[in-house]
C-alpha cells in the first residue's frame, strides 16, 4: 500500500497550512519589529520553512551578527531535522528518484514529517509535493500578512494562536499513544527529559535546539530497547 496522490497530499497539508499561517503571522510581526522589511521577512520564510530557526536567526541578522554565528545557531536548532530526514528516508517509496529527494528534503519540517510518517504505508513524491506545497503557502502568506498588517489583530488573538502548532502535535501524538503502550512510554520519557532540561538549573543552559535532539534520541533509544518492533517483512511501515 503506497500513498502517492498529490490531491491527498494537499488535503493532508491543509491543517499544517492553517497552523503555519498562525505561527508565521507572529513571525512576520516579530521580524518587522526587529527592523527587517516585509520583503526580507517573506524571503526568509520562503527559503527556510522553519519556525525556531528563523526566530533565532532574525535577531542575529538584524543585529549584524557574524555568518558563523548564524550558521552555528541554525545547525544547533535544526539538528533534529537530520534525525527526521533519516526516519523519512525509510518512509519514502522506492520509486522516489534521487533528484526528487533533493526537493522533498526542503519541506521536511516537524509537521510535514509527522503527517508523512503517520501514513500507514510508504509515501511517494507526488503525495509529498502536495503535503509540502500547502504549508509553504500558509507559512509565506502568514509571514507577509503579519509583516504588513500585524497590528490589525488584537494582541490577545495573536497570543491565542501561539498554541496552534502544539495543538497539532498533540493531535498527532495522542491517537498513537492510545494505540500502542510503547508509544506512551516513549512519549513519557521524552517529556520527562525535556522538562528536566527546562527546569533543572544546570541543564537549562543547554541551547533548546540541542535539548530536543538529545531528548528525542534518548527516548527513542530506550523505547527501541524495551519494545523492539516485531520481526517481519517491511517492519518500518507496520500497522
Amino acid at each position, binding site marked *: 500500500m503506497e500513498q502517492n496522490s498529490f490531491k491527498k497530499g494537499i488535503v493532508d497539508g491543509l*491543517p*499544517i497550512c492553517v497552523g503555519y499561517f498562525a505561527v508565521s503571522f507572529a513571525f512576520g510581526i516579530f521580524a518587522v519589529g526587529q527592523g527587517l522589511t516585509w*520583503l526580507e521577512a517573506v524571503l*526568509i520564510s520562503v527559503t*527556510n520553512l522553519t519556525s525556531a*530557526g528563523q526566530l533565532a536567526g532574525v535577531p542575529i*541578522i538584524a543585529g549584524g551578527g557574524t*555568518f558563523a554565528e*548564524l*550558521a552555528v545557531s*541554525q*545547525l544547533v536548532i535544526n539538528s533534529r*531535522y*537530520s534525525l*527526521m*530526514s*533519516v*526516519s523519512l*528516508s*525509510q518512509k519514502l517509496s*522506492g520509486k522516489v528518484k*534521487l533528484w526528487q*529527494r533533493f526537493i*522533498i*528534503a*526542503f519541506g*521536511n519540517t516537524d509537521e510535514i514529517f*509527522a503527517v508523512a510518517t503517520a501514513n500507514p504505508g510508504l509515501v511517494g513524491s507526488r503525495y509529498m509535493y502536495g503535503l509540502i506545497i500547502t504549508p509553504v503557502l500558509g507559512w509565506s502568506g502568514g509571514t507577509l500578512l503579519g509583516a504588513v498588517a500585524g497590528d490589525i489583530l488584537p494582541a*490577545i488573538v495573536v497570543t*491565542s494562536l501561539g*498554541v*496552534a*502548532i502544539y*495543538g497539532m502535535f*498533540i*493531535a*498527532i*501524538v*495522542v*491517537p*498513537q499513544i492510545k494505540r500502542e503502550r510503547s*508509544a506512551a512510554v*516513549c*512519549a513519557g*520519557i*521524552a*517529556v520527562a527529559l*525535556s522538562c528536566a532540561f*527546562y*527546569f533543572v538549573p544546570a541543564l537549562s543552559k543547554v541551547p533548546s535546539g540541542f535539548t*530536543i535532539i538529545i*531528548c*528525542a534520541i534518548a*527516548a527513542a*533509544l530506550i523505547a*527501541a530497547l524495551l*519494545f523492539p*518492533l516485531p520481526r517481519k517483512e517491511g517492519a*518500518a511501515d*507496520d500497522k
Partner: protein
Amino acid sequence: MISKEFLLYLLVLAGTTYLVRMIPLVLCKKKIENRFLLSFLHYVPIAVLSAMTIPAIFYATDSILTATVGFAAAIILAYFGQSLVTVAAASCACVLIAELIAKLF
C-alpha cells in the same frame, strides 16, 4: 530594496537549514534492515513531538493558566479522534476565551 548584505545572510540561513535536512535524506537511500535501528526510527517522531510540546506549550501564551486550558482542550479532542485542524483551532479558541476571562479579573 534588498541589500547584498541581507542576501548573504539569507544564503547562510537557508543554506544551513537545507543542508541539515537534505544530506541524510539523500544519503540514506537503502531500506534499513537492522531491527533495532528500525525500532529506533519508528519511535523518533513521537519522541520529537512530545519533547517539543511539553513543557513549551505551557509558555506559549500570556500565562500558564490559559495555556493549560488550551493544552487540556487539545488532549481531550485528540483523545476522541478529532482531526488536526479541529484540535489546533479549538485549542486556540479555548485559550482566547480563557485570556478574555483572565482580563476581566
